[in-house]
């Protein structure tokens, strides 16, 4: 009998050492906190250096503009710490011809500033579709990027048909346009933080750049379709790729937004949140891919700090029509015109203007605005007694 035990133990040991190392790493909690500390993806000094680049105010000599929204990433992503949210909004515009959205000449993003009054962009006549979009959180986005495509398809497939999210595939610029499930931006227009950084550097700050050597964002914007070349003193690309790499590395190394005090009411509220159907789309937990997994079309390997981590976004990173769509189309085709990405609710207590357009000023208001695919969950909310509602709001205030 004893021999049998020894043999069993030996077999187990052989099995153990034969298992790929990545699978042996247990899933652990993703670090969370608004504390400016690294999640381990880079060391602290590197994170601090990258944060400084992320927060740097660009000047005209750096290539700022000629048309732009803000001077640095940190101007829109800074509450309560650099990388967080803000109430700064983008303006997008275009025209709906009855069947399709046609973006504004020069692109749907209407830059709000310019280095010369002669090139200030404005919405031109005939572009009646107009929408403000609030600035998104980027803290913890490394975990979102490190989430495998298959995880999102699993989430989608588990959703009831009436609430099922929509997946779009978008090009990963640094992988030469290889397609991956979009997960960043209000319209899921990006799948990688490097692509997203390059896009934002060009379109929000007017800094032309290379992304891993690719020149997708190396051509200057226009002002309402007119060239701004005579105002631009810096040859393109204005960033050879170092800055966008620093932005991406900064976001990858940030901790996820942390929870506030979790009271008894918040605990009860989360149970209600789950039971009335909010959690179908505001998914509480997601696990990243194993360390060493090649993602982003092979352009990035999931680091040990980001792999096999459970994070709590309270979002599914899928597109839905909840009756509040803005009519804008980006990467997802005309069918996504009135869809928006489920707002991840992590860190939502740092916002006082809610929803993608910032038009909801209270949590209740935001919930009541949900329609379309969220109708059932909203109706369940309206049927709650006052205690359950208060608990649910307490839960949201703890996120």
């Amino acid at each position, binding site marked *: 009998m004893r021999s049998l035990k020894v043999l069993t133990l030996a077999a187990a040991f*052989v099995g153990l050492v034969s298992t790929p190392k990545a699978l042996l790493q247990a899933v652990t909690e993703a670090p969370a906190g608004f504390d400016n500390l690294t999640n381990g993806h880079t060391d602290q000094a590197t994170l601090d250096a990258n944060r400084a680049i992320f927060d740097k105010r660009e000047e005209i000599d750096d290539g700022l503009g000629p048309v732009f929204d803000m001077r640095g990433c940190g101007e829109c992503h800074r509450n309560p710490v650099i990388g967080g949210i803000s109430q700064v909004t983008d303006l997008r515009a275009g025209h709906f011809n009855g069947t399709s959205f046609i973006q504004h000449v020069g692109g749907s993003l209407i830059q709000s500033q310019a280095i010369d009054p002669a090139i200030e962009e404005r919405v031109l006549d005939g572009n009646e579709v*107009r*929408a403000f979009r609030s600035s998104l959180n980027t803290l913890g986005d490394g975990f979102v990027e490190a989430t495998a495509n298959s995880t999102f398809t699993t989430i989608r497939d588990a959703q009831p048909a009436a609430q099922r999210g929509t*997946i779009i595939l978008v090009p990963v610029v640094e992988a030469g346009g290889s397609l991956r499930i979009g997960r960043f931006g209000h319209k899921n227009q990006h799948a990688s933080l490097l692509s997203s950084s390059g896009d934002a550097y060009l379109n929000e700050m007017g800094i032309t750049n290379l992304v891993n050597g690719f020149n997708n964002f190396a051509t200057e914007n226009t002002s309402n379709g007119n060239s701004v070349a005579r105002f631009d003193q810096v040859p393109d690309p204005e960033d050879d790729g170092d800055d966008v790499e620093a932005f991406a590395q900064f976001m990858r190394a940030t901790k996820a937004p942390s929870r506030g005090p979790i009271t008894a009411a918040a605990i009860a509220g989360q149970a209600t949140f789950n039971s009335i159907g909010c959690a179908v789309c505001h998914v509480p937990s997601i696990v990243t*891919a194993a360390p060493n*997994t090649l993602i982003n079309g092979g352009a990035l390997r999931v680091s040990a700090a980001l792999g096999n981590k459970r994070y709590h976004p309270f979002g599914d990173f899928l597109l839905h029509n909840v009756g509040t769509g803005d009519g804008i189309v980006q990467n997802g085709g005309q069918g996504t015109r009135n869809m928006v990405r489920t707002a991840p609710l992590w860190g939502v207590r740092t916002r006082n203007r809610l929803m993608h357009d910032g038009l909801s000023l209270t949590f*209740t208001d935001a919930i009541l605005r949900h329609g379309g695919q969220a109708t059932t969950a909203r109706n369940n909310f309206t049927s709650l007694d006052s205690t359950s509602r208060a608990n649910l709001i307490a839960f949201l205030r703890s996120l």
Partner: protein
Amino acid sequence: MSLRRSPFVLLAVLVATAAVAAVYLRRPPAQPNVEESVPAPLPVAEEPGPPPDFRPAHPEEARAAVQRVLGDVIPLETVRAHAALVGDFNGDDSPDLLVPLRPLEEKLAALNDLELANWIVQDASVPALELEADPSPKPALVDKGDLLLAILHGYGSAGWRSPEARQVYLLKVARHSELSVIKRDEVKAQAAERKQRWPYLRGDLVRELGHDRFLYWTGGRYVWHDPAAAKLAQAPAPPKEKAKAKP
């Protein structure tokens, strides 16, 4: 030879195990997992359902719908059900209901309970994009004597008659004369013919009889649009007067 009686066999097993482990640990790292690619999703297309029910609202139906979504905060005697209108005001192809009502003073506290209300109060007189650009917006509240337009958004083809239809907006409108619904497509066609500029019309419009202004859904709220005022605002500014010398 029995295993029980042979410690050498046990030792051999352990040595073999250790050897396997040593070989494993010294071998080059395994190839990384590669994220699965995903087949291109099918184009998003909404399945056609039964035709939407745009029948006019019978006053009793309208009162019942108001009671369903607003309960006791709006006593039925304050509901002007005979003036109810039906249209697709938010442009989701589901019939919506509009009902004027004037709340009672003793219900104002309940109506303005921003945390527990099941309705959204909006001031339709704030122009589109003004609230969005306001750095410190304040929630709209119902005041004593306000006339409200309740708009109940429909659900599915049954629209506002569906028990699932419970999303309701209470619009402060200050005043209004008799209202009528104008279909979005009709307005668009007229505007195109006259080369008029209009806001993005997602749904049907509510127009005051005898006035040009109309109520429309921006995607986030209802606002009044006055074409005459908009035209005036877009007209070239008059020449500035010369500055007077300071005394």
